[in-house]
Structure formats: C-alpha cells, structure tokens
C-alpha cells in the first residue's frame, strides 16, 4: 500500500504549551482517515501542520514521500476544507471553484469542464452564477468541498466541516461525503470531535488526547477494543468496573464476581473493565447472560430508538444502560428494581 501522508515524531509547541506531542502516523492512499478527539486535543493543529499553516517544532511531515518542512501552503499538494468553509464572498460559485485552477493557469475551456463536473459530483448543476450569500448551509458545504477537490489534491483535508450543520443535514452530508469519497478516490484526512461521524465514515481513526495519539485503529477496533480508559470513555461512553483478578473473574468490592474471557491475567492484580452501555441488558428476569446483578432504576430517558437508564448497583455505583426500544418487555420506572447483565466477552479489560 502506498503511503500518502506520514507524520514522524511531530511536535508543536507554542511557548511552554505543547499542542501536539510526538505524533506519528501514516495515511495510506485512498483512505478515509479521521483525527478524533475532544476540543483542544491538538487534532486541528495537526491538520494545519499537514496543510502548511503551522510549522512543526520538531519532527517531519511527508506527503507523497516528500518532506514538507519549508514548503509553504500554496505549494503543497493538499487542499483544505475549512471549518467555517471560507468561501470567497465577493465571487460567485463558479469563480470560487475555479480559483485554484485559474492560479495554476489551467486553460479556460478546461476550467469550464472541470467546474461543471464538480457541480455534477455534488448534484448542484447550474449553480455557477449563484452568489455565496444565496446558498443554504448544505450547499455551501458542498461548494467548499469541490472548491478543494477540483484541484485534484493528493490529500483532501477536512477541518470539522459539518460542525455548524443541524443534525438532519449532518447525517445527509455524511452520506454525501462517503459517496464523494467513493467516486473520486482521493485520500481524505478528516478532523472531528464527533465520534459518530468518525465511526461512520472512516477507514481508520487516530484518537488524540492532550496532544498525544492514544490509539490508532479501524472504527470497530477503536470502539470494541479500546486500549485506554480515555478511549473507552470518549468513544460512545462506557461503564467502568475495577477489581482484583481471580480465576476467570474480577472481584469487585460490594458487587461480586464479574466473569471475563480467559486471558493471560495475573492473579490478585487490579483490572479495569469497560462495559459499553448497549451491551448491557435490563429486565425483571434475565437468562442466558454470564453476569447478572441487581439494581434500581434512578433515571430513564426515552430517546426514540432507544431508552437510556441510569441504574444504581448494590455497590453504589451508577451505570448507564442503553436498551433498544424494539421488543422491550416494558419501560421501567424510576425506583423500580431490575436485573442488569452482560456476557463475559462484552466486559473488556482495559488494564
């Protein structure tokens, strides 16, 4: 597999503050690659270093195998879709998309052809003469994406472009982005704090926290096999249990034994378990589950597709349970005594 973008031990410091701390990863050609993390984790700074607007304090960035230090943004084979889109307000849609091509002195008839192709790609044919102020949020988004794509960059960089959209439009744009990605085949590097977006679209995700890479993997690996407490909690939220390991189970104070999958665990060692809320079942009677505990519902939120319960266990720990709203016995009320349970393969050992 060809590597399009590679970061080797990249660090960015602003005075005393370390924004990006020794980050390394490689993006393969044609991948949809996401940088995921909470705000302030350094993901946008990383993206801006790839696009050339920030210079790494240490380390090196390679694009298509070439080192990029001292290459200014306007000479890099990357194009960025800005967080606020940054469409030129004094130009119409055509001139916005043609901007990069005109600078590269592409012949005018070629420009006409490529802009037309791009507008067809995002299903906005005939929009050439529109003013930017006349476009809706979703339309602006599409124009910003093709204004970057029309230059046929080696890598398309996207800096949380879906942030300002409402939920429905965002879901539409996610589908749209995946389709565009499939049709053009360009490598995408996508920055987001929204784990839903990252999981849905990416081939590979880099999870960042406090300037450091905490985990790299496919969406499923990141979600199902978090390697740290941070990843387990940040991606979709989770329930933690801590206890000492004894013979295929973890002994949690005041709760009892939680059986886990056999592994090379040392006896008497403290382990941290993560159990995702949707892996926990809830009911008056539970069968065919490995771990069952008594609890009391303290809160319930009806959310259409699912119901989220907060359940207080006997050791006074509060866990979150997400129950699908199909095939439910019934909705449990606050204060009701229930049983919660999960299979041993769903209790993931973090440490």
């Amino acid at each position: 597999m060809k590597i399009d973008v590679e970061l080797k031990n990249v660090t960015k410091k602003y005075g005393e503050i370390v924004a990006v701390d020794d980050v390394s990863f490689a993006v393969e050609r044609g991948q949809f690659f996401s940088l995921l993390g909470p705000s302030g984790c350094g993901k946008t700074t990383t993206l801006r270093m790839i696009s050339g607007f920030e210079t790494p304090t240490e380390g090196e960035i390679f694009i298509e195998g070439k080192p990029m230090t001292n290459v200014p943004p306007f000479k890099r084979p990357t194009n960025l879709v800005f967080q606020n889109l940054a469409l030129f307000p004094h130009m119409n849609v055509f001139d916005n998309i043609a901007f990069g091509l005109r600078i590269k002195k592409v012949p005018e008839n070629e420009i006409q052809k490529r802009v037309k192709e791009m507008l067809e790609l995002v299903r906005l044919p005939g929009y050439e003469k529109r003013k930017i102020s006349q476009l809706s949020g979703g339309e602006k988004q599409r124009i910003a994406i093709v204004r970057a794509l029309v230059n046929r960059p080696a890598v398309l960089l996207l800096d949380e472009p879906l942030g300002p959209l409402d939920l429905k439009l965002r879901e539409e744009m996610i589908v749209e982005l995946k389709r565009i990605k499939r049709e053009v085949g360009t490598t995408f590097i996508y920055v987001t704090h929204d784990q839903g977006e990252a999981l849905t679209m990416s081939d590979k995700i880099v999870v960042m926290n406090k300037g450091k890479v905490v985990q790299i993997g496919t969406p499923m690996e990141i979600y199902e096999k978090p390697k740290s407490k941070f990843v387990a909690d940040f991606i979709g939220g989770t329930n933690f249990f801590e206890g000492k390991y004894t013979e295929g189970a973890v002994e949690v104070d005041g709760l009892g034994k939680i059986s886990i999958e056999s592994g090379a665990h040392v006896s008497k060692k403290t382990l941290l378990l993560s159990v995702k809320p949707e892996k926990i079942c809830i009911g008056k009677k539970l069968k065919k589950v490995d771990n069952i505990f008594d609890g009391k519902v303290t809160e319930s939120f009806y959310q259409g597709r699912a119901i989220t319960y907060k359940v207080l266990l006997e050791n006074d720990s509060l866990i979150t349970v997400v129950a699908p709203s199909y095939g439910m016995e019934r909705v449990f009320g606050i204060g009701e005594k229930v049983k919660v349970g999960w299979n041993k393969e769903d209790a993931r050992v973090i440490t």
Partner: protein
Amino acid sequence: MNPREKEASQSPKTKKIELRGILLVVPTYLWLIVTFLIPVISVLMLSFAELHPVTKNIVSFPTMNNYLTLFTNLDYVVVLLRTLLLTVAVTISSVGLAYAVAYFITFKIMKNKYTILLAFQAPYIASYMMVLLAWRLLLGRSGVINSLLMSMGLTSGPIELLGYNAFSVWLVLTATWFPWLILPIFVSLEKIDRSLLEASQDLGASPLTTFLKVTFPLSLPGVFVAILFVFIPTIGEFVAPAVVGGTTGLMFGNLIYDFFLKGFRWDIGSAFAVCLLCIVILAVLVLFRKIGFEKLMESL
C-alpha cells in the same frame, strides 16, 4: 421582507414604535434643512443671478453670465484643472499611504493594535491652522528645510520644489489627510475573515496573488470611503493653498473665497461653488455605482 415581518409591521404596537422613530429623526432633518438645504438653494439661485457690483441688487435673473465668466477666462479654467489634478493626486497618495499603514497594523501587529492606530491620530490634537503654520515655517525657499540643507552644504541653492507652490500643497494635504484615512481602511481590512486568506493560499495563491485577488477586493469598501473622506474636502480646500501654495499653488476654493469675501461678487462666487458641488456629486455617484451604497455604508 418575509410574510412574518410584514405582519409584524402592520400591528398597532409596531406602528407606534415607527412613529416614535420618525419623531427621533425629525429634529435632525429640520436642522439640516435650515443649515444646509436653504444655503445651498440660495447659492444655486444666486449663481443664475447677476448682482449690481455696488448696490447688490439683482440686475437680471436667470442668466448664465456667471458660468460664462468661469469658462471664458483661461486663468480660471487653469485653476480649476489644477485643483482637479491636485485633488486626484492628494487622494491617490493619501489613500495609498493610509492603505499601507492600515495593512501593516491589521496584519503585522499582534499586540496593542488599537493604541498604535490611535497614535496615528495624534496630529489631530493640534489645530489645523497650527499644523499649517508649522508647515509654512518648514517649507518655502528660505524655510527651515531649505536653510538647513544649505547650511549643511548639501545643496548650493534652495530646492525650488520645497518653495510655496502646488507641490507643497500636495505634500501638506497628503500629510494632513492620510492618518484619518487609516481608520476606514483598517476597519474593512480587520473585517476580512483570516480563513479566507488561508483558503486562498491553500488553493495555490502566493501571498501577492492572495492580496490582489482576495484581500484588496474585500477591502474596497473601506478604500472607497477613504476616497470620499479625502476627495470631498480637498477639492474645496482653500486654507492650505493660501498658507503654502504661493501664487502657483492656488486652488479653486481660493477663487470662491476671494469672490465672496474680497471681491464681493457673490453671484460669480456662487456659480463657481455650484461647479465644484457638481464635480463632487458626480464623483460620489460614480463611487456609489461602483460599489453598492449599502455595502459602502456597512463598512463605516
């Protein structure tokens, strides 16, 4: 206006507010009518009248004689042309200088931007007359600059360009106007979203291309406002040419001043003033056509 707003504007409550709004602007309009419109109309009427040089009675009305006086006398036409030329020169140089300073403050200065901006306005603490008199001392064939250069042996005789002439008028007016013009240009530069400049670079534009294709076009409203700010007062200027203009730096405003206050030919002076007014109105209209009026005002 969407239907909802329309509905709202018809409700009795909004009508009351509208009425109150009108009451708020009425005094200002009355004031303008008394202090501006009436004098302008009087001048306009006077320009078509012929007054008796001694008795000041109206001899004939309407007549084009006053305008003929202007366009048949070559001396007056020369002064008019010089005034136009000087005004254009002052406008270009002061707006250009102000643009450079505004650009520097906006993009290159990170700390204490507004203090530096304010510091440029310091010259206006001194009265215009004082500043002009200071210039009068500096300039002139035997002024401070020339005598200094000569005593240091740098020049054998006085530099004629620094005497009292049109060049000095241009120099003085440019120097007095440009700090004030920094403000509107700064405002429109400051308004430009920085990500637009990054987007331009990201799409392959060098810093120079980015300036020409993005920064400058987006700062045009501020530039146009600055042009208005300097063009309108400069074309009617008569103090600076009187102080540092000598005989060759005389401007059209001086002619009007003389007709009104020295020759007591208010009729001819009025015709000259109306000519100037027409040029200003024309210039303003051209600028407003070039860029929408609303857009221009937004940048203020």
